[in-house]
């Protein structure tokens, strides 16, 4: 697996020059997100250019307020940039209208959030097939069965979220994220609310999705252990990319974090 991502801490200089590489599942080019105006303006993203390779698990790390969640939300079409471009497989999300953006999220993106991932009134099975049901698409039964076995929830399909443990709930969320075979799965602190064992299970699951199904996963985390599951880590601070690690070890991750936070 070749990782062709170019990390430029001073990315604003040459943002437009970056081509939409076919190997990038999703990328941000000179992404800026500003809250407020004038002196009160806060730059959550201050010119980020970064790509995320297809078929890889990439982690975004950074201290609180680094803009990592904002970047994820903008990459996933949940939020819009003040300036700059997000390309999802060559589609410029910035020019899409609300309706088209919704369709992109539904058909081309999968989500795993930190908490409140599931609709409490629906069963595990209904939660998994939710994106397909919303699209009125038929469920690929073989794929569904395979997913259910991978996440190990065969016996819990008829249960409602309240009857599942936190780890089980996150596994259901992973299955839902994968069910429509999206181009990218975005995970926002997917293990943030889990104990370490349940967290490890979820991370192994995401890892497996990348390895076995060739899924692209972009994950925001502040946990070095979680990040070490990734093929590559992109570090953010003060709304800018400040470095990256390929095939990281937890120790290296911690070192890097310490450097950034200093």
């Amino acid at each position, binding site marked *: 697996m070749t990782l062709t991502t170019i990390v430029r801490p001073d990315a604003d200089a040459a943002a437009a020059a970056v081509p939409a590489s076919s190997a990038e599942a999703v990328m941000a080019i000179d992404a800026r997100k500003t809250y407020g105006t004038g002196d009160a303006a806060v730059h959550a993203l201050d010119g980020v250019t970064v790509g995320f390779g297809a078929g890889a698990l990439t982690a975004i790390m950074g201290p609180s307020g680094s803009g990592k969640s904002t970047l994820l939300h903008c990459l996933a079409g949940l939020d819009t940039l003040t300036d700059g471009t997000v390309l999802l497989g060559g589609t410029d999300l910035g020019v899409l209208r609300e309706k088209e953006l919704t369709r992109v999220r539904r058909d081309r993106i999968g989500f795993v959030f930190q908490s409140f991932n599931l609709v409490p009134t629906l069963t595990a099975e209904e939660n998994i097939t939710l994106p397909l*049901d919303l699209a009125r698409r038929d469920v690929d039964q073989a794929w569904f069965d395979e997913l259910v076995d991978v996440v190990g929830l065969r016996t819990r399909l008829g249960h409602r979220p309240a009857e599942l443990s936190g780890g089980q709930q996150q596994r259901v969320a992973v299955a839902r994220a994968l069910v429509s075979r999206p181009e990218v799965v975005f995970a926002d602190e997917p293990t943030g609310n889990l104990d370490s064992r349940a967290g490890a299970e979820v991370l192994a699951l995401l890892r497996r999705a990348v390895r076995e199904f060739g899924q692209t996963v972009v994950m925001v985390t502040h946990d070095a252990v979680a990040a070490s599951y990734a093929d590559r880590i992109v570090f953010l601070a003060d709304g800018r990319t400040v470095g990256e690690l390929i095939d990281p070890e937890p120790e290296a991750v911690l070192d890097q974090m310490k450097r950034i936070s200093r």
Partner: protein
Amino acid sequence: MFKTTIRNLMAHRVRLLAAALSVVLGVALMAGTFVLTDTVGAAFDELYASVGVGTDAVVRADHAVEGQGEVQRPPVDAALADQLRSVPGVARIEGTVQGYAQFVGRDGKAIGRPGQGPPTLGLNWPSDPRLNPFTLVDGRAPDAPDQMVIDRASARTGGFALGDTVTVLTKDAPRSMVVVGIVTFGGADSPLGASIALFTTTTAQALVGTPGRFDGFSVVAAPGTDQETLVANLRRVLPPGTEAITGAAATAEQQAASRKGLAFFSTFLLAFALIAMFVGSFIIANSFAITVAQRTRELGLLRALGAGRAQVRRAVLAEAAVLGSVASAVGVGAGIGAALGLEALLNAAGFEVPARGLVLQPRSLVAAGVVGWLVTLASALLPARRAGRLSPVTALRDVDLDSTGGSRRRLVLGGAVTTIGLAVLGRGLVAGGDAAAGAVGLGAAVTFVGVAVLAPLLAPPVGRVIGAPLAAIGITGRLAQANGVRNPRRTAATASALMVGVALVACITVFAASGKASLDRVIDDSFRSDLVIDSGARGFGGLSPALATELARVPEVAEVVRVRLARAEVAGAPTMLVALDPAGASRVADVGVQQGAIEALDAHSIAVSTSAATAKGWHLGDTVPVTFASGRQDLRIVAVYANRNVAGDQFIAIAAQEAYDMRLLDAQLYLRYHPGADPAAARRAVDAATAAYPTASAQDLTGFKAERARPIDQMLALIYALLLLAVLIAVIGIANTTALSVHERTREIGLLRAVGMSRRQLRATVRKEAMIVALFGATLGLAVGVGFGWALVRALASQGITELRLPMAPLAVVVVLAGLSGLVAGAGPARRGARLDILRAVRSD
């Protein structure tokens, strides 16, 4: 604490808006009714006072029969005037005549419908201006048999001007009269919207009275004689059977009579105001329950900081008190506006309300406001109790707000309350009579409360079944189905408000359909005539007897059987007594004679039903005391019949009616053709004969059935319209609950949107959820309402409601409309939900 109360109210103002609105609407209808009643009542008081001002005494027969709000007295001999003229203190005496006279418009149709609306009157022109309640505004008094003066309202509606020739219907054959004058009455164009024709005294006696007789005399006192002295002087010479009262007393009588008519009208409206408030109480209780639930932590904190249960309870009640005061005050204000609307409605319906400013009686306004305030406070009692019961610990724990609502206690309590309600209702129905109406209303209300207590148990299973078809179609339906029953207690309370309105609609729908079916059944089973001519008159007005005479001359017509109505008291009970032609009666209607014969009826006899005979212990040959306006008669029973649904519990011959009731107008005519006559030709001949009588419409029995059903349909439409307010309040409640649910589910909605639910899909989900809640309410309402309707019909079986009908189409329409109202109620919250920021939900904070 008061500052906290206000702050809480302001913080939850949107949530409590629906509660406030329901109070406002209920209070508005109540205050509006009060203000209208006060205004119209005062207007008529003034009207009668001003028109009666010149009359110092009234002389009339001292006996009367009353019925259906009217008093009927026999006329007195005109010669009595000569005798009274010499009584000391009498300056002037004039006879009065009043009876049925109706104008025919330029289009050949009769003006006014005395059977349903204000009466159409013919009177004699009082020659002394002091005794004349009318004011000539154009032209002059009548002084020839073919002249008349008419009221300005009729001149306006009929387009009549001075010198016009207008056809007048009376007990005589229709005749043309020349309009020589136009009058007003007090300040109004006509008294109470009645049409007025004023003739010379002789003409009036011939057309609307009895020649040589007067209804009574109006007397003017000589200068220096007061009313009491005048009356005392008159009484000394009055013959037996007559009385004298002061002009003031006569005015008071008229004022009381108009107040009585008004009271019926206002009671009717007030009943609907109370229904609206009852429905509103569900919304208020639910709104407070939701705000308490959402503030569990806050209230728990108060408790943890040392607030006692009573203090927490009082805090909630204080909010209700403030909300109730503000909403009631607004409601009273809105009611004053509503009174103007109701007044306009009355005028549009043809009741001339004298132009006059609104009368705002403080006590009426305060009464409406206090009722609204008390209802608000009472409705908040349970939520307040629940708030007080919160323990500091549970309140501080992050508990799931959703309570299951299902428990054995609820089942027992709800079952008990429902049973008590049904028992009270049943007693009221069985008892019958006016006093029973209160029991029926109370029983129904208690039953509603009982069902509302049970509703949380019913909501999950019933809601799931209702939502199943939606869930089968797609994910939005599936989500709506789940959300609809997610909070059973909240769903139940919201749906219960709609249940009340739907139940009342269903009940009267069943009742009306059964009533119409019963009427049809009677006509199908018992009526044999080829044609029926119905004047539509019920106790006032009718068809000139000349028409029956003319129809009898039509070659194709074998027989005309006349039916009249006489106001009388049979064995002490006021009744509209049917009078008919005994000779042909059996051939046009079958009353199921058991003993004796209808043909034996004459001026001294009566026919009675078996049920009346059994109840009163009457037998063939016994005499029954019947009091007519003219006095008491003992009538001998010559026939006993089984079928009381045709002509009631007793009837007499027209010969008896003419002798004792002395009014000559026919209410209905039943026609039989000669065997072998061509029905089409016969019909044409009859239509030709009735052409000059616009109030006479010939119908075959099918048409007659439709004609009889029409007033039922009109009543139904009116009641539907008034129940609309209750339904509207319930729909506001659904919108409110849905909005609160959407508000609570911000994160869930964000999640759904994040994983690809479109705004349109989200809106559909919310709307369908509201629809499921509405349909649940409609289902409960339909079940309860059909049950009530069934009970009502069964209870009135002895009153002639023999058929039970469940009209599927109208009831289905009710359900469909309820569902649609849910969709509409959900539209606002749906829009708001769709606008929610996705990020607010998914941001891990």
